[in-house]
């Protein structure tokens, strides 16, 4: 047993930034792990990869990935990424962010990015609350869950993210939990190879904050919930893919082909540009 050997994925991480800030048992580490695993499987050219993230625990992922990366303001990762991708369609642009960042403050950007079908890949770690600020109720907090701002139980109906993504026009939509690392990695690989807007949601345990308030004190307990409740419903109706105590519908929900926004835009541009260039010496 050799201690000195380096982790096979270390080349995808910024050594200076390790160890990451995440709590013991936090699923974000697994999301990052699966993401770089997918990069490794695909032999992705890190020089062409841009990782964009917003604010929140998972937002740190951009800084941890050994590629060009940008840590935007809260909720704006997709708008920023849109600029990046349009300006240089050659780049592989991935947004890795949380449920609050992408669907509360950033919700408008999400639905419009999906509607435009900009070729940006979104990997969302859903921890069911605002972890970094100490566990407030958020857009995905299940009904009756206890958080620091829903001390009497949450009465807001949560977003069904896969349904939202599908309805907004995403060309690939999947949901897994951080226990389903194999399928998650597969889905990330799939998404990275697609052209249009893609969305992969990962239910990620937040034992120190969300778990503590909801009788799942350890990551293991939260993982146990995922194990017990998960039902694989590949290509089942996303509108029925709810997340409850007894049932978490996981799987791939959408996989369609659609011309990406940047492709259409740049085709138009080059046509018009050619015309404009006519007879210019």
């Amino acid at each position, binding site marked *: 047993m050799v201690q000195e050997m380096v982790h096979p994925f270390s080349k995808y991480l910024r050594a200076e930034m390790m160890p990451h800030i995440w709590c013991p048992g936090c699923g974000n580490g697994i999301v990052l792990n699966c993401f770089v695993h997918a990069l490794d499987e695909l032999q992705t050219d890190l020089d062409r990869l841009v990782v964009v993230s917003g604010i929140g625990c998972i937002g740190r992922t951009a800084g941890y990935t050994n590629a060009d990366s940008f*840590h935007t303001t809260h909720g704006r990762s997709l708008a920023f990424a849109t600029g990046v991708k349009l300006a*240089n369609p050659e780049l592989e642009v991935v947004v890795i962010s949380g449920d609050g960042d992408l669907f509360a403050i950033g919700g408008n950007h999400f639905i419009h990015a999906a509607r435009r079908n900009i070729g940006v890949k979104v990997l969302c770690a859903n921890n069911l609350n605002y972890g970094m600020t100490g566990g407030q109720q958020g857009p995905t907090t299940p009904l009756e869950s206890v958080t620091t701002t829903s001390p009497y139980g949450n009465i807001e109906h949560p977003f069904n993210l896969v349904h939202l993504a599908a309805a907004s026009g995403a060309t690939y939509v999947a949901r897994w939990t951080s226990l389903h690392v194999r399928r998650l990695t597969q889905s990330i690989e799939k998404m990275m190879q697609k052209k249009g807007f893609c969305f992969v949601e990962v239910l990620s345990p937040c034992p120190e904050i969300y778990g503590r308030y909801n009788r799942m004190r350890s990551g293991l307990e939260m993982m146990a919930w995922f194990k017990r409740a998960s039902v694989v419903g590949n290509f089942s109706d996303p509108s029925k893919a709810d997340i409850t105590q007894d049932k978490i519908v996981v799987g791939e929900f959408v996989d369609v082909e659609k011309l990406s926004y940047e492709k259409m835009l740049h085709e*138009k541009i080059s046509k018009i540009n050619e015309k404009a260039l006519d007879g210019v010496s």
Partner: protein
Amino acid sequence: MPKTKNALVGAHFMNGDVACAEGAITAGCRFFAGYPITPATEIAEHLSQRMPEFGGIYVQMEDEIASMAAVIGASYSGLKAMTATSGPGFSLMQENIGLAVMTEAPCVVVDVMRGGPSTGQPTMPGQQDVMQAKWGSHGDYGIVALTPSSVQEMFNLTVEAFNLSETYRVPTLLMADEIVAHMWEKVVIPPTDKLRIVNRKKPNGPREKYLPFKPDADLVPPMACFGEGYRFHATGLTHDERGFPQTSSSEVQSRLVKRLCEKIEKNSGKIIRVEEVMLEDADVVVVAYGIVARAALSGIRKAREKGIKAGLLRLITLWPFPEKIVARVAGQAKAIVVPEMNCGQLVREVERAAKETPVAFLSKLGEEPHTPLEILEVIRRNS
């Protein structure tokens, strides 16, 4: 930058928004992200038609927040990028103007000022955003704001704005007003190669050694772009020269914030531009900017006819504020008159610079700017 037969050269009759758009194209802007708003809409409209002819990108985002974010993204992808808006949108953009400042993303923001606050008077001119231009986003930072007073300047200063933002890696604001934007005038566009076009400085040296936020002597760090293999990180968090977050180090915080301010202040000599008219012997000096400056000039001429020694100091650069120049001019004058289309914003800066010299303020709100006679009247009273 692709040459095209459509590149406008020579004399043209156009309005300010169009002149601004043409200026952007001439300056090499190849990315525009915006959201329709009166009275800046024509800039977006014109660019949506013109950008593709130059291989450039026009994208209409879901709001001004997104527009500003997209502009920063495009800038980091290596394009000269801009957006255009008016007061309400300008407010929304402040968040990411702050991000552009923090991540030192070169970009241009055009604010065609209208009547505020809130939705105010969309079709009426105003100068109510000039303080927001400086202080709009939270935290301390240096910023550059130019203000055109003619359609020709809408063209020239747009080019200038890009040059400055590329030089200093700072968001540069073009603070126009509804009249300048909608007014039709003759604009002379020189051949592009006769114009001074500045591009951001790129890093040289080994990629793995690259420190994205390590400044040169001019306090401005060379800028690598995404996809060039530098694999660098940028964040809105306080960061060290590597670009990595340093959220608890006061040393890093002060070093970074100071530099963000100083890179503008220390270079203000190179940045600031003003126009001085008949100041040699002036007793009364009118300090004005934008469309108001033109009313002021004819007011001054009328005063001279009546024998009053009046002169004009037109501010082209609002920020960094031309403090020294104002001080010098004030030193030689008996009185200073400051007409603004607001309740008195820039006048505070003028008073601060003018020291003992008395400063008279002339406010105007609503449908039209000050008339020459109104200006003449104030000059007479203060002579």
